[in-house]
């Protein structure tokens, strides 16, 4: 009780606190340290959350490597590489956004954050194209799942001519699809086994990329709020913690993709 009174007296005197300093922290540095550690604890839970999926992926990949190799080849490597580049670029713009906030450049902060959101949207747009392709080729696990040769024959004979004339991005998946239909080497799995085990790959593909995409959507949502705060001039060189924390989250999502890209797209490309 007497402590609280003494504390209240402390606040009576002349030196002004930063408006963003919460009353239960002594200094801005102490407050920021608490937030950064808290954010990292959250990110550690996220690492282990995705870690469980990576563990499931690893076991099934070791068990059914042939299925993973064949299914992975049906993905279009150029979309995956493009999205990797887009996300890395968005990490750069995010880092620049945080830097602008650190140096109290309000307008630049807002612009960098908007560019980051746009790049996030581009990533999601490419993901939509890829998902649509999976539906088209019956590569979505479940009742209508069809792996390779059995269903490729009619679609390729029907579309061979028009596909050749179509634009590059649309021919690429078909070409890789046809390539995947023909085994690249002696497989340990027969056609029925491939039909079952490639579904495991695609289940993991949709779970992992889907959860990653969900994180991207959440990230863009967070960024909208932060951009509005930045626009309203809520940050300065003493207080930009929300921008930096949004950045940590965004970079984390980028790191998840850095691992997802080789694991899903590059299982076995050299045969």
């Amino acid at each position, binding site marked *: 009780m007497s402590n609280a009174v003494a504390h209240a007296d402390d606040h009576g005197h002349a030196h002004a606190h930063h408006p963003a300093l919460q009353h239960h922290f002594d*200094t*801005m*540095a102490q407050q*920021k*340290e608490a937030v*950064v*550690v808290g954010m*990292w*604890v959250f*990110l*550690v839970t996220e*690492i*282990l959350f995705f*870690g*469980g999926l*990576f*563990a499931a992926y*690893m*076991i099934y990949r*070791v*068990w*059914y490597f042939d299925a993973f190799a064949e299914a992975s080849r049906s993905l279009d*490597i150029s979309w995956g*590489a493009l999205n*990797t*580049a887009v996300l*890395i*670029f968005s*990490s*750069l713009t*995010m*880092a*620049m956004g945080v*830097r602008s906030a*650190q*140096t109290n450049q309000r307008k630049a902060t807002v612009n960098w954050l908007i560019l980051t959101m746009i790049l996030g949207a581009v990533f999601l747009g490419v993901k939509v194209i890829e998902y649509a392709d999976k539906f088209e080729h019956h590569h979505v696990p479940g009742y209508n799942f069809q792996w390779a040769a059995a269903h490729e024959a009619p679609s390729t004979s029907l579309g061979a001519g028009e596909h050749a004339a179509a634009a590059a991005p649309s021919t690429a998946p078909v070409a890789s699809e046809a390539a995947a239909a023909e085994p690249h080497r002696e497989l340990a799995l*027969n056609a*029925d*086994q491939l039909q*079952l*085990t490639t579904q495991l790959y695609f289940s993991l593909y949709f779970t992992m990329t889907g959860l990653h995409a969900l994180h991207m959507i959440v990230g863009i949502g967070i960024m909208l709020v932060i951009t509005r705060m930045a626009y309203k001039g809520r940050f300065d*060189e*003493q207080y930009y913690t929300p921008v*930096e924390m949004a*950045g*940590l989250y965004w*970079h*984390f999502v*980028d*790191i998840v993709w*850095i*691992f997802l*890209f*080789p*694991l899903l797209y*590059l299982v*076995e*490309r*050299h*045969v």
Partner: protein
Amino acid sequence: MSGHVSPVSLYLTIFIALMVLTAVTVFAAFVDLGQFNFLVAMIIAAFKASLVIWYFMHVKYASKLTKLTVATGLFFLTILLGLLLIDYVSKAFTAMPMPLS
């Protein structure tokens, strides 16, 4: 306490390094390295992730407590993946189920 402000040139260098490593990982996937394709891909990915964590996420300039927190996450991830895989790869009771055989 405004924290460390990294020069723009550093961010650009990291960005270019990440882009080059992405190209390298795609290129390496098309070279037959036998069992080592996977290892090479994972080493490149881990290196890219380290660059992002160390420079973009400012862990390089963070307190020891923050560094310890990050290390804790990686430590438990290693336990999760490492010990699990040791079991699955080496123990007979986790043999591969082969459907329809």
